[in-house]
């Protein structure tokens, strides 16, 4: 320890050395490299026979210091960092960050950009839920669902590629609007996809919803009372599966979500099966939102009228001196953001995603903190599995739907 940098800590740590008492007791180390932990998560599990007595998650294996990195990037550059936090829902992260900075700047975003953002974040939700469903079913032993889900996911990734040139790290939302003009033919491509997607959800349900093995493995498993989840910081589909209709898209609407007609699905089981039902229903609702965005997409500009923040059109740069100057200034020094702090919350596929952005008036964020849904949700895993059987641990952690990049940042 260097010059007093570290205050005294609780040295008990993970208490790995002491063997648990009794002949039936054993310690099982799940991960950090384990296919069912969806990343690098380590669970230290104490067993009594097949019953979990104690579960201690150990996180941080994917910690890359993204919050520190924000402080040396300009506001515009930092958009690319947000993709890499929750790599299954990059556009949700882009949106949360852009909304926070736009709130600091007081920027007005034109309707087409807002609707395009809604449409693409809902496609992101579908993408994320499809990966979740495929891998969660595979964890429990239903192999073929994975193939079905990734078939549709491929279509969504192709749409992302069409918009941004990237399949995963899209960075398509920028402060003040979108990164590029929506490509020619996007409406037809998205239209084809939402046309064929809802029957595909029925296919997944055919495989699982009434499947006796699926029900046996999920119903009544991993249940937590609602009060405990609220106390432990759980958000998103897990709360809705316990009967609480909480959704930031409805409660604190952003990016014109108040203009869309959709329902917040809830169930009351609060178990793995209820979480599955909620997410399946959310996919149907997301498809509905995409359809509405497609049909009602307003015309007009796709970036804000804010020359000091948004890069000028290429054509203008060739004919107008101010445009060229703005371009030079934005690219070389970034733009200054007024002093202040905001906390912007959006509903990511996994739950409440909050961006706390502090500005000191310069072109670099003074501090960015991400309140990521996976971090909160993972905290509830011990409560979920303690007292249950070891075989149910995998189903329980699968139903939490965390992404380790989102936990560790």
């Amino acid at each position, binding site marked *: 320890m260097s010059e007093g*940098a570290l205050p005294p800590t609780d040295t008990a740590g993970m208490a790995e050395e002491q063997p648990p008492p009794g002949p039936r007791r054993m310690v099982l180390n799940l991960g950090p490299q384990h296919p069912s932990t969806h990343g690098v998560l380590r669970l230290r599990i104490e067993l009594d026979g097949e019953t979990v007595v104690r579960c201690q998650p150990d996180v941080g294996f994917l910690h890359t210091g993204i919050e520190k990195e924000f402080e040396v990037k300009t506001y515009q550059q930092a958009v690319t960092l947000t993709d890499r936090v929750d790599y299954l829902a990059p556009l949700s992260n882009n949106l949360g960050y852009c909304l926070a900075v736009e709130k600091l700047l007081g920027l007005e975003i034109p309707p087409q950009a807002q609707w395009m953002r809604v449409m693409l974040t809902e496609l992101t939700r579908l993408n994320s839920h499809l990966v979740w469903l495929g891998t969660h079913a595979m964890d429990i032993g239903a192999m073929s669902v994975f193939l079905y889900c990734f078939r549709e996911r491929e279509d969504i990734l192709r749409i992302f590629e069409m918009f941004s040139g990237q399949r995963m790290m899209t960075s398509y939302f920028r402060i003040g609007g979108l990164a590029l003009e929506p490509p020619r033919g996007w409406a037809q491509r998205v239209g084809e996809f939402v046309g064929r997607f809802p029957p595909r959800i029925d296919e997944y349900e055919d495989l699982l919803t009434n499947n006796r093995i699926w029900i046996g493995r999920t119903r009544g498993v991993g249940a937590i009372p609602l009060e405990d989840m609220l106390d432990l910081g759980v958000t998103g589909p897990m709360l809705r599966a316990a009967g609480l209709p909480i959704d930031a898209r409805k409660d604190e609407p952003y990016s014109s979500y108040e203009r869309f007609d959709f329902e917040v699905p809830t169930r009351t089981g609060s178990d793995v099966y209820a979480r599955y039902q909620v997410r399946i229903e959310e996919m149907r609702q997301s498809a509905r939102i995409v359809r509405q965005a497609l049909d009602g997409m307003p015309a007009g500009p796709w970036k804000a009228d804010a020359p000091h923040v948004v890069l000028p059109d290429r054509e203008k740069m060739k004919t107008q001196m101010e445009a060229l100057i703005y371009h030079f200034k934005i690219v070389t020094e970034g733009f200054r953001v007024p002093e202040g702090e905001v906390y912007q919350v959006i509903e990511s596929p996994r739950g409440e995603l909050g961006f*706390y952005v502090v500005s000191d008036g310069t072109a670099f964020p003074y501090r960015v903190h991400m309140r990521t849904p996976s971090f909160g949700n993972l905290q509830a895993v011990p409560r979920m599995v303690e007292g249950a059987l070891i075989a149910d641990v995998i189903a329980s952690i699968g139903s939490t739907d965390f992404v380790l990049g989102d936990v560790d940042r």
Partner: protein
Amino acid sequence: MLPDSLRDRGVALAVEAFDAGAVQGGRFDRGEVTLEIAPARIASVCGYLKYDQKFVRLSSVTAVDRYPAEPRFEVVYHLHSIERNMRVRLKCRLPGGDPAIESVTSVWRAADWYEREVFDLFGIRFTGRPGLRRIMLPDGWEGHPLRKDYPVTGSRV
């Protein structure tokens, strides 16, 4: 000592009525309420907000390093009331030398990991709670990366 911008905010008035000595200032900016709370009173104010003002959720705990200014650290709490559909931000200022503050894990269990993260990355100690140890970095790591005097690049010698 509530600033005038918070005079018409119910939650700010309620906290002042509960414990006038705890409120050291605040701000209403861009539609968000910020209350500055005396560090010694944070747990009791949080308990009041949770049980009497229906802020059942602790959304996040984080910190900001104002180095080289003093008091150097701000510990920031974001509270959420589902019933009132309202958020409030609490802020405590701590000095740079051995920063420590009372833990709120007794109010919300969610604070456990959030506080461990702040301890790990800022070196702010939370008192009156068990298991305060690093969460992101390895146990033997030196320094606290989110402090402003911690370098962004460079190699260890």
